[in-house]
């Protein structure tokens, strides 16, 4: 194969876009492309062909458990990120610093903090009896599709976050999962998917685009693993979120 036609590298571009050249050849082509608009234009055309090649392979469907594993991994990552993004107070940061950098001073600091907190506790406790807002708990009712199952949604005092706990739900086939729906008017927003252990117990930190307090009710349905864009399966639990 001639390397160049009129000093261009056009003949090399098919192998270049496929990464089939040696390292030295790749460098030569890249160097030429940097200054040659003719070859850049040809490269764009031949790259379009390479972009289409994956569509020409015979297609096979992956096993359903690939999606189950993917969505579980994503959800776990999401929950961990959410937890780690919680704001850390100045006191916590200082305590962490002291604990990691200066263990002895850190210990002394913690002792001082504990004593200080004990003194403050009595005074704050008195005020809290009048002003604190407790966590809210919403009991969910089961349906004829899941007799005997129970569920509770725990919401933080600000109505922003929530955790769902369920028990006595049926263990589903690998291709199915439970999906939480947050309901406002006719709109159904997914709050995440979960599975239960062999005893029928499971929990899920609800992740929603809006604070939970803004939704009117909650429902749980059986959906294909990984979840559905909107409810398609049997409802197993549900309840109003009366604020």
């Amino acid at each position: 194969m001639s390397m160049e036609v009129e000093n261009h590298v056009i003949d090399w571009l098919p192998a270049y876009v496929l990464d089939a050249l040696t390292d030295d050849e790749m460098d030569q082509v890249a160097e030429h492309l940097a200054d040659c608009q003719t070859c850049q234009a040809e490269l764009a055309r031949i790259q379009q062909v390479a972009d289409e090649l994956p569509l020409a392979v015979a297609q096979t469907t992956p096993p359903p458990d690939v999606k189950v594993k993917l969505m579980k991994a994503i959800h776990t990552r999401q929950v961990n990120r959410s937890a780690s993004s919680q704001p850390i107070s100045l006191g916590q940061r200082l305590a962490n610093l002291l604990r990691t950098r200066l263990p002895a001073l850190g210990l002394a600091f913690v002792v001082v903090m504990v004593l200080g907190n004990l003194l403050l506790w009595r005074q704050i406790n008195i005020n809290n009896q009048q002003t604190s807002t407790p966590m809210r708990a919403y009991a969910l009712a089961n349906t004829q599709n899941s007799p005997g199952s129970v569920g509770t949604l725990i919401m933080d005092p600000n109505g922003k976050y929530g955790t769902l706990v369920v028990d006595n739900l049926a263990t589903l086939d690998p291709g199915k999962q439970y999906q939480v729906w947050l309901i406002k008017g006719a709109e159904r927003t997914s709050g995440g998917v979960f599975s239960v252990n062999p005893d029928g117990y499971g929990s899920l930190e609800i992740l929603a685009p809006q604070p939970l307090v803004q939704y009117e009710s909650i429902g749980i349905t059986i959906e294909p693993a990984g979840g559905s864009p909107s409810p398609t399966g049997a409802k197993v639990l549900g309840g109003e979120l009366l604020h």
Partner: protein
Amino acid sequence: MDYARLNDETLLRLIARSQEAALSELYDRYSRLVYSVALNSLGDSDRAEEVTQDVFERVWEKARTYNAEQGRVVNWLTSIARHRSIDFFRQTRSHHEDLQMSWQEAEAIDLPDGQNVEWEVDLVQRQRRIRWAVAQLPAEQKQALGMAFFQGLSHPEIASALGEPLGTVKTRIRLGMQKLRTLLQDEQVA
């Protein structure tokens, strides 16, 4: 929200905002394609499954970095799939001389059952075009192209695996890609 009605770019924007249902929909659309690219590269279903999961986890993490000006979402996905598969392939180096590329024959492809939304129609049309074009190539060109594209093998590696002269392999790849380019261009004009 009916995610099936959203285009790929919108799904990616929702994925960037951590919408799991959007990732679920994107997976339903393109997992077959991603898995098939990996399977063709690796020839091993277990590793192809691993790559498939890895590709969509990367999409979850990198959705914000997608730039529509650099290409379509499906090309972005298959590019990730191809490069991850080649990485796996190089790590394990299975016997590439035994791998059989499985270019799809250019038979008619029916639109899948369902809503036939824009992304499905577009994908099926593009599959028809490229499969038709690949089917026009001589078998030895298809084989060399497959080894370069899906296994990431260089000219010398392909020549060694096939027991062919280096110049022959270079010519097959060059002619194969140039012919595909001409066929696709002509077909687009027609």
